[in-house]
C-alpha cells in the first residue's frame, strides 16, 4: 500500500508551498479584499507560467501532463495561501469539463489557451437559492443559442469562457461575445469575485456527452484539497497563537479549554485529509467509487473548514475578529468554498443515494 503522493508530487508540493509563501503571503488576498481589483492577475500569470494551469492537460493540448493528482497537490497549497486566483473555476471545472466531455476540436481550440492561462474559464450552474437539480434548470439552448440567467458565478466577471449547465447538458460560451451581460455581485468573501450572468441568445458550442454530476464529482476532489489546505493553515495559525499568547501568566495553549479545542481542530483536519486522499485516489484511477469518494471528501472538507476557521477566530479572542488579523481570510474563504459546488447537506443526500445504488461498498466501510 502506498496511500500517499509520490515523491515527485511531494516535491511539487514543497515547490508550490515555497513559491506561494513568497508570492502569495496574506497581503495578496488582502489587496484584493481592500481594493476593486477582482483577482491577483500577476499571481495568475506566474502560476500559468509554472505550468500549474496546464498540470492535468496532456502535452498534446499544450499542458504538462502531470495528471489530476498534481492538481490536488497544487489545490492544497493554493488553499493554504488563500490565493485570490480563478484556479478552481478555470482548472477543476472549465478545463476538466472540456477534457472529459469536449470534442477533439473543442480540446484543440481551448485546452492550450487554458493551459497557458491566457483564457480563464468558469462554470455557471446555479439559478436559484437551494440545491442543484439538473431537471429544474431553466436556462436553455435552442438553435445553438443560450437564454437564461446564472447567479453568483465564481470569477464570472473575469472569466473569458464559461461552461454553462442547462437541462440539455453543458455548453461552452464566450463570455466576451454577443448576448452576454455580466454584473458583479458582492459576496462575503471579496477575495474571490463573482458575477451574475444573463444570456440572451448567446451563441454556444455544446460539449458532447456531458454529465454535470460527474463534473461536480471530479471538481469536488481538488476543491476538498483546497479546503484542506485552508483548514490546515487556520489550524497552524491557532496553534502558533496559543503558544505565544499569554494570559494569567501562562500561554493560553496550556489551558485545556484552548488546548483540547486545538486538538479537536487537528482531528477534523486529519479526517478531512484522509478522506481527501481517498478522493484523490479515486480521480487518479477513475475508480467506480469516485462518486462516493467525492462525497466523503467534500463532506469532511466542509465540516473541517467551518469548524477550524471559526475556532481559529475564537482562539485569537477579541483580536480574532479584527480586520487586521488574518483569521477572517480563512473564515470567509472556507465558507465560500463550502458553498461552491453546493453545500455539505446536498452532498450528504447524494452520498446516501450513491451508497444505496452500490451495496457492496458498504461492506468496505
Amino acid at each position, binding site marked *: 500500500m502506498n496511500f500517499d503522493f509520490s515523491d515527485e508530487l511531494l516535491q511539487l508540493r514543497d515547490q508550490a508551498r515555497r513559491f506561494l509563501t513568497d508570492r502569495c503571503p496574506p497581503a495578496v488576498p488582502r489587496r484584493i479584499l481592500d481594493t476593486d481589483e477582482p483577482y491577483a492577475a500577476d499571481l495568475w500569470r506566474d502560476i500559468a507560467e509554472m505550468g500549474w494551469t496546464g498540470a492535468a492537460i496532456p502535452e498534446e493540448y499544450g499542458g504538462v501532463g502531470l495528471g489530476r493528482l498534481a492538481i490536488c497537490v497544487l489545490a492544497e497549497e493554493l488553499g493554504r495561501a488563500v490565493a485570490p486566483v480563478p484556479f478552481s473555476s478555470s482548472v477543476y471545472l472549465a478545463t476538466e469539463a472540456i477534457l472529459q466531455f469536449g470534442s477533439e476540436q473543442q480540446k484543440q481550440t481551448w485546452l492550450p489557451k487554458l493551459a497557458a492561462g491566457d483564457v480563464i474559464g468558469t462554470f455557471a450552474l446555479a439559478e436559484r*437559492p437551494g440545491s442543484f437539480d439538473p431537471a429544474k434548470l431553466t436556462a436553455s439552448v435552442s438553435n445553438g443559442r443560450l437564454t437564461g440567467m446564472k447567479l453568483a458565478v465564481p470569477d464570472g466577471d473575469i472569466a473569458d469562457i464559461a461552461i454553462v449547465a442547462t437541462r440539455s447538458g453543458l455548453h461552452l460560451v464566450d463570455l466576451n461575445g454577443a448576448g452576454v451581460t455580466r454584473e458583479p455581485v458582492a459576496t462575503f468573501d471579496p477575495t474571490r469575485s463573482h458575477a451574475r450572468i444573463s444570456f440572451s441568445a448567446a451563441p454556444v458550442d455544446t460539449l458532447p456527452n456531458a454529465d454535470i454530476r460527474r463534473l461536480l464529482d471530479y471538481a469536488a476532489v481538488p476543491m476538498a484539497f483546497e479546503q484542506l489546505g485552508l483548514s490546515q493553515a487556520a489550524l497552524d495559525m491557532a496553534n502558533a497563537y496559543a503558544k505565544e499568547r499569554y494570559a494569567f501568566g501562562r500561554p493560553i495553549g496550556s489551558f485545556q479549554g484552548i488546548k483540547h479545542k486545538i486538538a479537536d481542530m487537528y482531528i477534523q483536519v486529519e479526517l478531512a485529509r484522509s478522506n481527501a486522499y481517498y478522493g484523490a485516489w479515486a480521480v487518479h484511477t477513475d475508480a467506480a467509487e469516485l462518486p462516493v469518494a467525492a462525497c466523503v471528501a467534500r463532506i469532511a472538507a466542509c465540516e473541517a473548514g467551518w469548524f477550524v476557521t471559526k475556532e481559529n477566530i475564537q482562539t485569537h479572542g477579541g483580536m480574532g475578529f479584527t480586520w487586521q488579523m488574518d483569521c477572517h481570510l480563512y473564515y470567509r474563504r472556507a465558507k465560500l468554498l463550502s458553498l461552491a459546488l453546493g453545500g455539505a447537506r446536498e452532498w*450528504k443526500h447524494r452520498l446516501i443515494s450513491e451508497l444505496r445504488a452500490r451495496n457492496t461498498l458498504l461492506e468496505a466501510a
Partner: protein
Amino acid sequence: MDFEDTPEEAAFRAEARAFLDANAERRKPGEVEGYRRGQDAPGAMERAKDFQRRKYEAGFVGIHWPVEWGGRGGSPIQHVIYNQEEAKYDVLTGIFGIGIYLAQPTICTWGTQEQRERFVKPAMRADEVWCQLFSEPGGGSDLAALRTRAERDGDDWVINGQKIWNSGAHYSDFGILVARSNPDVAKHEGLTFFILDMKTPGIEIRPIRQVSGSSHFNEVFFDNVRIPDSRRVGPVGAGWKVALTTLMNERHGMRDAPGPDVAELFRLAESIELEDGPAIDDAAVQEKLAEFYTRSQGLKYTKFRGITALSKGQTPGPESSIIKVVAANKLQDILSYGLDMIGMAGPTMGDSMPVAGIFEEALLYSPALRLAGGTDEIMKNIIAERVLGLPQDPRADKGLPFRDIPTGARK
C-alpha cells in the same frame, strides 16, 4: 405557574406603554434587526438623545435605582417590564447604557458625594455620554493584566498606554478608566479607577475595523494624559474592586444574539427548493429546525425563569451566563445551516437574498458574539466556578509582583 403580570406589574406596564406610544414609533412586525444597524444613520444620535431626555423626565431611567441616586426606587422587575415594552419600539438607547448602567452605579457605590452630584443626572438625561476604557491589547480575557500606567504627579495622575474594544470614544464626553498605579504589587492590587474627560489633550482614538467591515470599536491611546486626583474613584490601589462593580453590572444582562433565529430559518426553508421539493418538507431540515427551535425555546423560558426570580425579589445570579454562550453558538449554527441550504447562491450579500441577506451578514459579525463581554471559555469558567462551585484554574501569576508575571515574547 403563569405568564401574567401581577396587578401592580400590569399597571406599570400600561404606564410604560403609554409613555412609549406618545414618544416613539412601534417597530414593524417581523422586522429583523441586524447587528447594530441604525446606530450610524444620520441624525440617529440627536434623536436618541432627545428620546432619552423624555424617558428621563417620565421617570423611566434608573427605574430600579434608589431615590438617593436619582432613581425611581422601583423594582428590578419594573426595569425588565419597561425594557420588554421599549424593545417593541424603534428607539436607540443602547449607546447610553455604559454611562447609565455601568459608570453611574460604580460612581454611586465608590465615588464621592461631589462626583455623584456632578455626573449621575447628566448621564441619565443623556446630556453627557460615557464610554469604557478597561480592555487592553495584551490583556484579553485576563482583564486585570492591564499595563496602562497611572503615575502621580502633584494633584494629577499622568496616564500613558493603550486601551482597546472601546465603544463610542469619539462621541463620548467621559470615560471610565482603570490603570496601573503600582506594578510592584500583585496584579489585582496595583490598579486605580478614574473618570476621564474625553476632551483632555493627549488622547488619540483610532477605529478598529472588524471582520464585518464596520467599526464599532476603537483603540484609544494615551500620551501623558492628565487626570486630576479629584476624578479618582475609590482608593488608590483599589481599582480592581471598583472595576468589579462595573463588571458585575455588565454581566448582569441576559444577552441574546441578534440575527437570524429559528423563525428566519423557517422562512428560508419555506422559500427555497431542495432535491425533493420545498426545504421545509425535507425531514433533515425539519430535524434541524426542531433542534434549533427547542434551543431557542429553552433560552426564552430560561429568561422567563430569571424574570420570575426578579419578580420575587431574588437576585438572578451568574445563571444568566448560559444565555450568552448558548445564543451566540446557536446563531453560528443557524447561519451556517441556513447558508448551506441556500447552497451555491449562499455567498451573495444583500437584500436580494432570501430573508434579506441576514444569514450572510451574520456570518461576518457572529464570531464577535462568542468573544465580546467574555469568551465562551470565560463564561464556562464563570458557570463552573460561581454556579457550580468548581475550583479555579491554577494561577501561574498568583502572588507575583505584576512586573514579574510571565508574558511570553510579548512586550
